[in-house]
């Protein structure tokens, strides 16, 4: 059903740009979008008018800013009307889904150059209202309605996982420790401080068993990619990165309707299709960007993507295997936890980190000889998952 047979041509990433993720009191949504887009446009050496369409991931301009129609706003502020602009929303997977929409439009032959981006401005509202906006990623009628919060949903997954597989509090903390370590090498990360397991376990409880250090922050930020057909990539860059696959799947919105609450079927489905389309197996992936909105989510991701068996992900954190010097580097930019989570932009940011790694531009956190990268972006507690596989172009 899905497969490269249906698509006409291969797609490459030919330009990237992103802002720092963090609290940008002095920048609004337009400023952030403009900053990221200009970097991408300058990198690709284009004027801008060549961009034929925009796909903008944004979870909730409406609730954070009272602003809908965000894609048109971005195109306008870049001075690039009348190019068509589409706002894409899939909660925290908005960026990944935007990437996929852009990819489809180029692969199908409809466009020869599109801008795919994501932007979120989360700090203009009180924290409690921001949390309410994020709760829209859940089933508002039958989860949030009774007082569940987004961390609460993942906390329930964590609790059951610990019950099923004997995961310890300390082992879970290792995920945050690693991501903060990676963040310390990333100038654009929201948090660049290193932390210890004790720091994690000593931080205040948010929703038992998850503590402050188990949870990603709310960040302002924007990120942008330019996509072009592979055969034209050299017009824009010497280091095209091929999008070998960009697959997406859905699952029940609510946690209570899942088959197994410790498994994200959408991730498994999307990953299966992506590996099949890219014609590779998990063993061949050199670097990963997975959706660690909470520490438990990173463990589930590694299992559902196929890198280990269900219940065994914690064992991958021994002997630094998942650090950038290890055999399976995960979230080398700090992930969502330390890198930051500007919701609509995260899926794009993940792809950008892979591009840097595959180009050899990742500085102090470089994964040597990285050739194939995989990005994994999730919406809500797992109702949407996007898996993207990138390969260094020849």
């Amino acid at each position, binding site marked *: 059903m899905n497969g490269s047979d249906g698509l006409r041509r291969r797609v490459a990433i030919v330009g990237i740009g992103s802002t720092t993720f963090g609290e940008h009191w002095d920048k609004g949504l337009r400023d952030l979008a403009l900053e990221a887009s200009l970097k991408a446009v300058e990198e690709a050496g284009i004027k801008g008018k060549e961009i034929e369409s925009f796909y903008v991931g944004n979870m909730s301009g409406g609730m954070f800013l009272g602003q809908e129609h965000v894609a048109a706003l971005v195109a306008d502020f870049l001075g690039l009307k009348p190019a068509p602009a589409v706002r894409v929303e899939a909660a925290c997977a908005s960026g990944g889904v935007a990437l996929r929409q852009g990819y489809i439009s180029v692969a199908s032959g409809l466009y020869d150059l599109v801008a795919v981006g994501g932007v979120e401005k989360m700090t203009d509202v009180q924290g409690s209202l921001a949390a309410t906006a994020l709760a829209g990623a859940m089933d508002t009628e039958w989860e949030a309605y009774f*007082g569940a*919060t987004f961390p609460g949903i993942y906390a329930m997954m964590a609790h059951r996982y610990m019950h099923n597989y004997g995961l310890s509090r300390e082992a879970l903390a290792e995920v945050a420790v690693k991501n903060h370590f990676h963040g310390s090498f990333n100038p654009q990360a929201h948090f660049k401080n290193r932390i210890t397991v004790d720091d994690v376990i000593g931080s205040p409880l948010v*929703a038992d068993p998850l503590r402050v250090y188990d949870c990603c922050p709310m960040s302002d930020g924007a990120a942008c990619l330019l996509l072009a057909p592979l055969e034209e990539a050299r017009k824009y860059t010497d280091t095209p990165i091929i999008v070998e696959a960009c697959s997406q799947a859905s699952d029940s919105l609510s*946690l209570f309707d899942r088959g197994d*609450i410790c498994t994200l079927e959408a991730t498994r489905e999307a990953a299966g299709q992506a590996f099949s389309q890219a014609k590779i197996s998990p063993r061949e992936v050199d670097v990963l960007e997975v959706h660690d909105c909470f520490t438990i989510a990173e463990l589930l991701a590694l299992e559902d993507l196929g890198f280990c068996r269900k219940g065994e992900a914690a064992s991958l954190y021994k002997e630094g295997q998942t650090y950038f010097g290890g055999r399976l580097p995960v979230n080398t930019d700090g992930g969502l936890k330390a890198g930051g989570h500007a919701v609509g932009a995260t899926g794009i940011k993940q792809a950008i980190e892979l591009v840097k790694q595959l180009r050899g531009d990742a500085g102090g956190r470089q994964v040597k000889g990285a050739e194939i990268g995989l990005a994994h972006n999730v919406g809500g507690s797992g109702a949407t998952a996007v898996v993207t596989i990138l390969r260094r172009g020849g």
Partner: protein
Amino acid sequence: MAMLGVASHWRRYRELYTLKGSRCAKCGQAFFPVRRICPNCRREGRIEPLPFSGRGSIYTYTVIRTPPEGFEDYIPYVVALVQLEEGPLVTSQVVDCAPSDVFIGMPVETCFRKIRAQNREGIIIYGFKFRPRDSQVKQQ
């Protein structure tokens, strides 16, 4: 959550007040909340109403300490996935016990409580929560 009008709450009184769900007569799966189309059988399914007994056990839970808007007065409170004896999982609060008393597998039953109030001026929303089943007399 958004300050919705009263109709959106009123529409769900049957489910909130009396835990009425549905069942697909074709594949036998029970649903809460009500599903109008069976996700397994779709249009070949036959959906019929199914009242639940209200008995279940705790499948997983958490203790909310950072509350969403409207729940500030209640922290810390327990939110759980309760497995009804008829099968479906339901998200709900667990009350009438300390958070430290809750455990995976704990038998529970429904009770009728305030879910939330729309500030001091809006309507009060009532519905089901869960409490420990057949609570033993606590030792003094």
